[in-house]
């Protein structure tokens, strides 16, 4: 793996964050959290994948994004009202660092440098990248069109 959420930290701040961690495992299909539940924990995935979903009464759980190794699962614990915006299910067997939100939030309040580093990492690595990716998906770039890649088998513009 080339990088990940923890790769955005200095050694000292990564060590500080990991001091709050415990290792957990989820079998495939485990419901990790539900939309609108209190966001009291978060995870950094070490192995496996987790699907984020939104429930639709007619269509069930609609997967909107998959998270994998090294990625942060959950950022709603950092911002009020501390409730999940989406649901999450383990796509396969998952191993992760799990953190309780309360002591980490307390550490953020007590140590401004650590708090800034953590907030920056969540904002840039998790929220920023996902927002950029989401915006690209909104463009529906791969839809069939007469202005597709000509040299890749489409048609000249």
């Amino acid at each position, binding site marked *: *793996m080339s990088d990940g959420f923890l790769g955005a930290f200095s050694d000292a701040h990564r060590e500080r964050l990991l001091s709050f961690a415990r290792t957990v495992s989820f079998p495939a299909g485990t419901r990790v959290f539900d939309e609108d539940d209190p966001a009291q924990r978060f995870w950094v995935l070490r192995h496996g994948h987790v699907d984020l979903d939104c429930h639709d009464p007619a269509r069930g759980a609609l997967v909107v994004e998959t998270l994998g190794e090294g990625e942060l699962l959950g950022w709603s614990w950092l911002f009020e009202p501390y409730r999940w915006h989406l649901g999450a299910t383990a796509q396969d067997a998952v191993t992760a660092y799990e953190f309780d939100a309360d002591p980490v939030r307390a550490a953020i309040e007590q140590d401004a440098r650590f708090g800034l580093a953590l907030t920056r990492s969540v904002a840039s690595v998790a929220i920023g990248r996902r927002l950029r990716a989401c915006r*690209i998906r909104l463009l529906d770039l791969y839809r069939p069109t007469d202005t597709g890649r000509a040299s890749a*088998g489409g048609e000249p*513009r």
Partner: protein
Amino acid sequence: MTTPAPYRVVTRTVEAPDVATLVLEPAGDPLPPFSPGQFAMLYAFGVGDIPVSVCAVDGHRLTHTIRAVGAVSSALHGSRTGGTVGVRGPFGTGWGLDHAAGRDLLVIAGGIGLAPLRPVVLAALAAPERHGRLNVLVGARVPGDLLYASETDAWRERGARVLVTVDRPDARWNGDVGVVTTLLGRAAFTPSDTTAFVCGPEVMIRATARDLVDRGLDADRVRVSLERTMHCGVGHCGHCQLGPLLLCRDGPVVTWAEARSLLRVREL
């Protein structure tokens, strides 16, 4: 312009409802050998011609994957086995896999952009000792649009790390959901010792190349396949001009170091 050489359709494989792969063999004298990344002008006789990259080269046989989106591509897509198409080429620059020797490889494709990158994957798999880890990251709109689905498992078995994601899953899809750049964090590569090959819609190329540079790849090591209207194939007509480049001759494959500033100019 040269006269198109007649090539016979040897096989036609349906990849998706609007995508087919044609294997062509010369009906007369063969054209000079194509390199991965180069393209041909394919003629549907009586309809017109379009540029199409090679997606495999096997001796004198050429393989092209074609999406039916307009009159010419629809005619080519509908070619029958035994039929004849016209071919000019080879045109343009190749991916330059030789320049990536000894390095980790990132092959990143969006949509039908996997077609021009397929020969890079096949060449890398054929000579694994020549490079480091091979990563193939593929993004598609829906599961049914994924190209070469029957091959990707074989790529994995031969040592490639193949990661696939779709924008819109269907009920049967149990893989990743998201844009292809989200797979980068799970690829196995050392940024300072990696060459990336990127092909897809231009917005996807820009986002991917920026992400790669942010992760530590040198812009000279990010090779992208660009697109403008290709017509003559030999740099005469100017239809494919992108600033100082004529992409049919100086491209379609260029480095991100060359492309970055050009793609910031909207009028180019």
